[in-house]
């Protein structure tokens, strides 16, 4: 799976939920080898400001048509510029990067996918492939837990139920589905139905991922958590996207993994969660 650099062309872009955009890009090379869970570094705008490319996970991959889709939320200047791109705009890209979600290798009673907010982005392609290749993937039940702060932030997910996926929604304010965090919804559904998935796939805010990691370790259920970070290069050169890793021999010693090359998919136990210093996200206000 060689990495490459190419210009992607905007085919279509639409706002699918509040400040959330789905961007379809034509790709000659990256789409051919991209796998669910991997990501692409995408230039938001020509020139040097913003300077760096932004990492985006693949939301949909259609190699036979040479198409890629990313789903992103406008959180700063880079994503704002991206949201203004019209069809036929060419955006320089580097990819596919990072590791990918591993499919179940043994017969599986069920898997759970947990998405918090824009964390739905990388789970879509994985979920569709799990559902469409059910016999080959040996997965009986697919439970999808999808939460956001409010209903307006949820992207349309009608198609999932027709694929035989059990969908469970939550919003922090109760404007749709369960009122509360998606992790609480997941835990209550799991407890009520005596559901113990064979694998948990999860993507969302860091605190949510921490909760999923703790649940996964406590219930001895393997997990694949898609994590994010600021990064400059995406290819393991800048070492900017460091996350602390546990050092069982010497808990005080520092050791770091890098989201771009060791991830973005990590198992629950591979991150020293309590060593991460979280920063509250800045509100999207251009003063």
């Amino acid at each position, binding site marked *: 799976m*060689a*990495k*490459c*650099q190419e210009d992607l062309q905007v085919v279509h872009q639409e706002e699918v939920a509040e400040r959330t955009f789905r961007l379809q890009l034509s790709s000659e090379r990256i789409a051919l080898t991209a796998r669910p869970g991997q990501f692409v570094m995408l*230039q938001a705008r020509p020139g*040097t*400001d*913003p*300077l*760096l*490319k932004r990492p985006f996970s693949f939301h949909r991959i259609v190699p036979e048509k040479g198409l890629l889709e990313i789903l992103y939320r406008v959180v700063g200047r880079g994503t704002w510029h991206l949201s203004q791109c019209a069809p036929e705009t060419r955006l*320089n890209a*580097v990819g596919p990067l990072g590791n990918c979600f591993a499919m179940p290798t043994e017969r599986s009673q069920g898997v759970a996918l947990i998405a918090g907010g824009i964390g739905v982005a990388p789970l879509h392609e994985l979920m569709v492939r799990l559902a469409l290749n059910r016999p080959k993937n040996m997965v009986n039940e697919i439970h999808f837990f999808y939460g956001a702060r409010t209903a307006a932030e949820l992207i349309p997910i009608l198609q999932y139920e027709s694929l035989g996926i059990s969908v469970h929604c939550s919003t922090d304010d109760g404007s749709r589905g369960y009122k509360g965090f998606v992790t609480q919804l997941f835990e209550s559904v799991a407890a009520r139905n005596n559901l113990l998935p064979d694998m948990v796939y999860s993507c969302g805010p860091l605190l949510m991922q921490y909760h999923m990691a703790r649940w996964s370790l406590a219930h001895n259920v393997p997990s694949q958590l898609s994590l994010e*970070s*600021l*990064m*400059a*290069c995406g*290819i*393991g*050169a*800048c*070492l*900017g*996207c*460091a*996350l*602390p890793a546990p050092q069982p021999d010497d808990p005080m*010693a*520092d*050791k*770091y993994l890098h989201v771009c090359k060791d991830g973005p998919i990590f198992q629950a136990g591979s991150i020293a969660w309590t*060593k*991460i*210093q979280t*920063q*509250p996200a*800045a*509100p999207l206000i251009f003063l």
Partner: protein
Amino acid sequence: MDQDSNATGRPPDLSVELGPLRLKNPVMVASGTFGYGEEYADFLDLRQLGAVVVKGISLLPRPGNPPPRLVETASGLINAIGLENVGVEAFLSQKLPFLREQQVPMIVNILGNTLEEYAELASRLDGVDGIAALEINISCPNVKKGGVLFGTNPEAAAAVVQAVRRETSMPIITKLTPNVTDIREIARAAVNAGTDAISCINTVAAMAVDVFSRRPKLANIIGGLSGPAIKPVALRCTYEVLQAVECPVIGIGGIMNATDALEFLLLGAKAVQVGTANFVNPQVTNQIVKGIERFLQVEGLATIEHFIGTLDSRCVFPFAEEACEP
């Protein structure tokens, strides 16, 4: 016939000499922006580079700083990686063989907390097959000990260069920080202590804060600024160093394209290092080499040496010249 003209149609000669070091072209990659080379092998032909300067190596592995380690600013990037590296033993056994096979001159950037560590590193790397030169890092702003502490004092800088010089017969490049009152003093001290070349600049000490959380944007609070934002500072430093010393100078700072690279060469830098641009465009160095070649063809120059250091420092207003045209 004008010696500069290149009517033969042959591709221009891009080769340069930096003291004892001969490079096929003046475009290198800067330490810390190119890993150990293998990270970029999918994207470009490493043999087309003048040289690869690998990520700074210390005696023992270093974990680096806690995250967040990066923040993007206007046309710039502030980093506080903290010199994360695999250490000299793992470098020699795991990282060096790949680059040696690529047949590209490899320059090893070294850093230490003490004079003894610099000396020990120089002695371990001396004469190792595949290494073309050592670059002494006395300019990293992101670690508490060593690094920039040696680079901001002429006596300390001279002591590091001497310590390395005693342990190696390899060419030595000394990489300077711009975070000093007078970079010429440090450059003179390094040359008098035996460095073969100077590279400048390392990153500019910088910080960024968030008004909503009222916190710094880097865990280390202060980091080093790189990218297009620092090119004018880098040009000024390179200019000053060139005036102060006779040895070859390598220009570094904010080079994003061939024009930027040519600006440093125009001042008199024998070569350049491309850093942050590698993150943005992993193929940029190959494109810069081609761009320089094209420039020399357009200008009718047979060799890059005919362009290096040809700055005419009498500044004229651009319109004044046009106004004089008949």
